[in-house]
């Protein structure tokens, strides 16, 4: 069997004689026997017969078919001439336009191909591969709406997973996360065990902040592809997002074992260990992550958190301040700074930092807990109680989220999933 590994030359040669879309037959001579000759490979006889038909008046369809025969004989210039004449004879000939576009693509004449494909698309739905190609061109040219139109058309007519994946990528790039997730749901319905579909689904879910669906896809990926570090990393990241730092440690350690020295993995591992209050253990991966990405604000704030936990206040303060000086500092940096200021008994500064932390991450129970403490120290019992109440609420929410995750993963602090 032959594969069409996306070489455009192959696409041309593999082009179907009968288009993949159903259209009413064109009037004119019966070309069925000649089409059969072409499919059998008897190109010489097919050409002779077509030329006879054309000499008697022929028609656009016969001329288009002659172009196809010439392409198969690698007589590309003559073929192009025939396609153009076919189009001149019948400007509505979608097949001839698509054949001409394929010819241009095979010759790397991208601008000509794009022009023909756009004209063809105005006349009717394109073949699967050409629809995908036009979508690619439109996206590259900054026309996402036109690209989306093609992708939807291919996805709907051919149940094409490729089109759905491309559509999801396009939608993600346009921040349409709900649409992207819907496209991926459709792709999973057709190709549930495709690695690419599962990976895209997990990443889109993570990007949308949906840890549980991401974990479902990642469970399958990790099970089916146990040697791929990226899936372990994503699993750890999803668990961190869901607030289950304890469960995140194991996949992140495995990711680091499979592909050592990756800054993102080291950072996530450090965050997971710090989240379990294993501060000394957390420092090593965080320092290594920082050596690979010295300005990463998340790493800096995670390191600051570990140092604060170890009572290394000077280091914690320095790293938290460095994180806060960077672009888009994480809430954790303000939280650590607040905790450091508390220990330094600089309560007003502590309060400001903790309020900033709480504003940046409203779900953070820890910020409310610390605010409760700081207001108590500042002799403001009302506010202190208010934040303690908020702390309890957030903590319960976090525990509920973790329980949901563990119901899915089966993880328990006493042991691993079965």
């Amino acid at each position: 069997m032959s594969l069409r590994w996306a070489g455009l030359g192959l696409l041309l040669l593999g082009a179907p004689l009968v288009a993949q879309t159903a259209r009413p037959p064109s009037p004119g001579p019966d070309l069925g026997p000649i089409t059969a000759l072409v499919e059998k490979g008897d190109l010489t006889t097919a050409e002779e017969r077509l030329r006879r038909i054309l000499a008697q008046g022929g028609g656009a369809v016969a001329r288009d078919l002659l172009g196809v025969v010439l392409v198969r004989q690698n007589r590309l210039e003559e073929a192009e001439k025939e396609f153009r004449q076919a189009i001149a004879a019948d400007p509505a000939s979608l097949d001839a336009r698509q054949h001409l576009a394929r010819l241009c693509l095979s010759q790397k004449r991208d601008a000509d191909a794009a022009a023909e494909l756009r004209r063809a698309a105005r006349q009717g739905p394109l073949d699967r591969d050409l629809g995908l190609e036009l979508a690619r061109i439109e996206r590259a040219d900054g026309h996402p709406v036109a690209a989306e139109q093609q992708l939807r058309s291919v996805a709907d007519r051919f149940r094409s997973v490729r089109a759905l994946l491309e559509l999801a990528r396009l939608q993600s790039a346009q921040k349409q996360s709900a649409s992207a997730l819907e496209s991926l749901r459709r792709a999973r319905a057709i190709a549930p065990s495709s690695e690419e579909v599962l990976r895209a689904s997990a990443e889109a879910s993570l990007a949308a902040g949906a840890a549980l669906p991401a974990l479902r896809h990642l469970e399958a990926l990790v099970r089916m592809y146990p040697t791929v570090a990226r899936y372990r990393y994503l699993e750890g990241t999803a668990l961190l997002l869901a607030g289950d730092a304890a469960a995140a440690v194991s996949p992140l350690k495995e990711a680091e074992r499979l592909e050592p020295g990756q800054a993102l993995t080291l950072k996530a591992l450090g965050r997971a260990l710090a989240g379990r209050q294993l501060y000394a253990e957390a420092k090593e991966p965080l320092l290594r992550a920082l050596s690979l990405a010295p300005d990463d604000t998340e790493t800096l704030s995670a390191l600051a958190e570990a140092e604060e936990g170890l009572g290394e206040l000077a280091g914690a303060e320095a790293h938290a301040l460095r994180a806060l000086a960077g672009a888009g500092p994480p809430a954790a940096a303000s939280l650590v700074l607040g905790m450091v200021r508390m220990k330094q008994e600089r309560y007003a500064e502590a309060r400001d930092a903790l309020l900033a932390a709480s504003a940046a991450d409203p779900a953070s129970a820890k910020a409310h807990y610390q605010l409760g403490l700081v207001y108590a120290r500042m002799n403001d019992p009302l506010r202190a109680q208010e934040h303690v109440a908020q702390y309890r609420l957030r903590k319960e929410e976090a525990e509920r989220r973790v329980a949901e995750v563990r119901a899915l993963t089966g993880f328990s602090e006493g042991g691993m999933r079965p």
Partner: protein
Amino acid sequence: MFERSRRPHAVVAALLLSGALPSRAFSENGVDPAAALDRAVAAAEKGLREGELEEAESEYRAALLEGWLLMGALETAAGRLPEARDAFRAASTSAVETGRPLRALALADLRLGQTAPAVAVLTQLARKDPHDAQVRRLLARAQAGEPSGPADNPSPLAALAPAAKLDLEHRVKAELVRVYMNLGVMHTQGQRFSRGAELFERAAAIDPGSPQVQYALGVARFNARHFAEATGPLARALAAHPEDAGLRRMLAMAWLNSEAFDKAAELLRDDPEREADASLQFAYGLALVRSDRAREAQPVFARLLARHGDSAEVRVVLGQANAQQGDFEAAIRELTQALRLDPRVAEANATLGVIYLKQGRLAEAEEALRRELTTRPDDVKSQNALATVLDLLGRPEEAVPLLRDALESKPDFADARYLLGKILLAQGKASAALEHLEAAVRLAPEDANIHYQLARAYQTLGRTDEAQQEFEVFRQLKEKRRKSAP
């Protein structure tokens, strides 16, 4: 290190297998037990034809699931329960679906009397579908420690005649090989050679005698730059097709890159294209030099230079050949000429650095090795050589980060472990030194110097018995070396 794999390597050719498989084993009710498997394979190949690779992959994965479930059922019917369990486990990691394979796996465990793993699997299933009554019943039995018997889990294939079972087994195995091969090809076509190799390994585990599978596995490992691991399958493929010159060359390159230079030289010696092909001739000369046959290499390089013009890479290997024969001056001439031709040529400065080190010209050695590391910062041998030079120059603190970098890239680098351990010991960090020296002695047990430093580390830490033991090994190795010296 030279770029020894720059010759165009055949990407795994389109190995996709197709065609009807042999006879079909039908059960008594006329239903083909492998129908689902066949359907999945057919759907995958339709996906391939349409350029829908994701759909094809998903269908192939479904085929693996069906294939392994069938294999498990066949093994169960034959009473080979451990093999059945392995098959069900393979099924459970083949596709997104886990219900059927995990249930079958738990039943196999129960029939083997292994209730603990059965409980783990059934708990997982019960968590996914708490309303599945059968799973809950089985879980209760497993938790009660009750094993299962054949009556609890009759094989769906039990009614098949023995010949039909055998026929079905052959057919399923052939399908599984075909699916693993095709999935592997899809990965290698996407330049994901390690992933492709993993799938070819699965095919090879089912059909180790297939030269085609061995070829695919060897080529994928070669392209993944796992040269040592490529040699086995490539050698087996070559044994089946000794006339395949391309395969012979690839095996030679795999041997060369895994530093089995004598084997590379042997394969390249009679290559008919060697004289005309500069890369092959260079590889042959290099293999000769590195297998201590520098004298034979020199005319090879002379012909190479005469036929293909001057080349920095050739000058480097000629320099190394001279150095190997102890002619340091000639070596320095060749290496200097190489650097004139291409100041960034690999290994010229590294070799000069090592020559200067041997000559005690430490400042020049440092300079040369630093130049090498400017162009090839990850070259662990140069990192180690420079660390040696720095230690000799009395700057061990500068050597330590170099050695740590080298060990990060190559944790089994015995020389670097030894030197780092020695420096740490001298700095009074005996516990840290011990970790490296113990690793070094495991990697190079015949190296007397490592045993000596290890003995000193034990001594420093007050572990006198172990220290004594290591001093004794050191003494014996020295004695052995003295006796074997010419």
